[in-house]
């Protein structure tokens, strides 16, 4: 009961934070509010018996905040004015309706908070020391039972970082090789 109440408090904190992140005029405060949401989440993870996730969330949160601030800091005019379109708002409302109905149906079939269905996990909890030698069961699952999943994660991470590196590269190779100053679009205003 105690944990549920605490989670309720922090969840309301997180929702208020995301509300500010969505609605505030200044882009920099929006980014910082999103960071606040992440830290609230990491405290909740600590209470929910997930210390590994809490640590990872804090580290990732710091990096995400740095990356997002790098994205916003270079801009002169941060706030975008103008009338808001009605069509996206309408689409969002329709989506809300559909999502609420489906979500309530789906949540009605679930076991309540605090009573997880542990069928596969039962095996992991009972046998992880014997089979993997890891006393931290989460790490046993991550690095032994589902090691291919982690390999895929590393691949996705590598690909996205390579993509970001290629996108942010200052000049194309073609220009160095040929000194051919055709207008390549992106380099036009440099």
């Amino acid at each position, binding site marked *: 009961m105690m944990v549920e109440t605490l989670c309720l408090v922090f*969840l309301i904190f*997180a929702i208020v934070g*995301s*509300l500010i*992140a*969505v609605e505030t005029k200044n*882009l920099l405060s*929006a*980014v910082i509010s*999103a960071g606040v*949401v992440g830290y609230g*989440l990491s405290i*909740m*993870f600590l209470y929910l*018996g997930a210390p590994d996730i809490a640590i990872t*969330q804090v580290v*990732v949160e710091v990096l*995400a905040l740095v*990356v*997002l601030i*790098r*994205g*916003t800091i*270079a801009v002169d*005019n941060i706030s*975008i004015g*103008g009338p*808001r379109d009605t069509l*996206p708002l309408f*689409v*969002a409302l329709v*989506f*809300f309706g559909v*999502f609420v109905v489906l*979500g309530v149906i789906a949540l009605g079939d*679930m076991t309540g*908070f*605090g009573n*997880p269905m*542990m069928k596969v996990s039962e095996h*992991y*909890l009972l046998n992880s*020391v014997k089979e993997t030698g890891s*006393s*931290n069961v*989460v790490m046993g*699952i*991550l690095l032994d039972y*589902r090691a291919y*999943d982690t390999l895929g*994660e590393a691949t*996705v*991470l590598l690909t*996205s*970082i390579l*993509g*970001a590196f290629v*996108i*942010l590269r200052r000049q194309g190779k073609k220009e160095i090789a040929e000194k051919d100053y055709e207008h390549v*679009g992106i380099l036009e205003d440099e």
Partner: protein
Amino acid sequence: MIVYYLCLVMFMLGIYCLIAKKNIVRKIIGIVIIEYATNLFLVFIGYKHNGIAPIITPEMQDNIPAFAAQSVDPLPQALVLTSIVIGLGTLCLMVALAIRLNEKYRTFDTTEISSLKG
């Protein structure tokens, strides 16, 4: 049960931010909020009343079944750990694209970024 519904609310806030806002960085923040809500929901599913973290200490070594009856579900935690790190990677890619777009068009407004040439 009410925490599940609050997760739904947070998810929908993210969807609203993603659809209705015109600023690209604001859309990225929407995606980040959606990620947070989903991760939190998955960890909530695995929680057990009065549960302990799924780490076996030396004094529990002899009585593994009692530990298994008391511990929270480790499987969602392992998958959420993967999801958080992948979220950081995709965030880097999105911010890189936004910076590049801002260099070319001098704006973050998606309604002004209309030409696809070059």
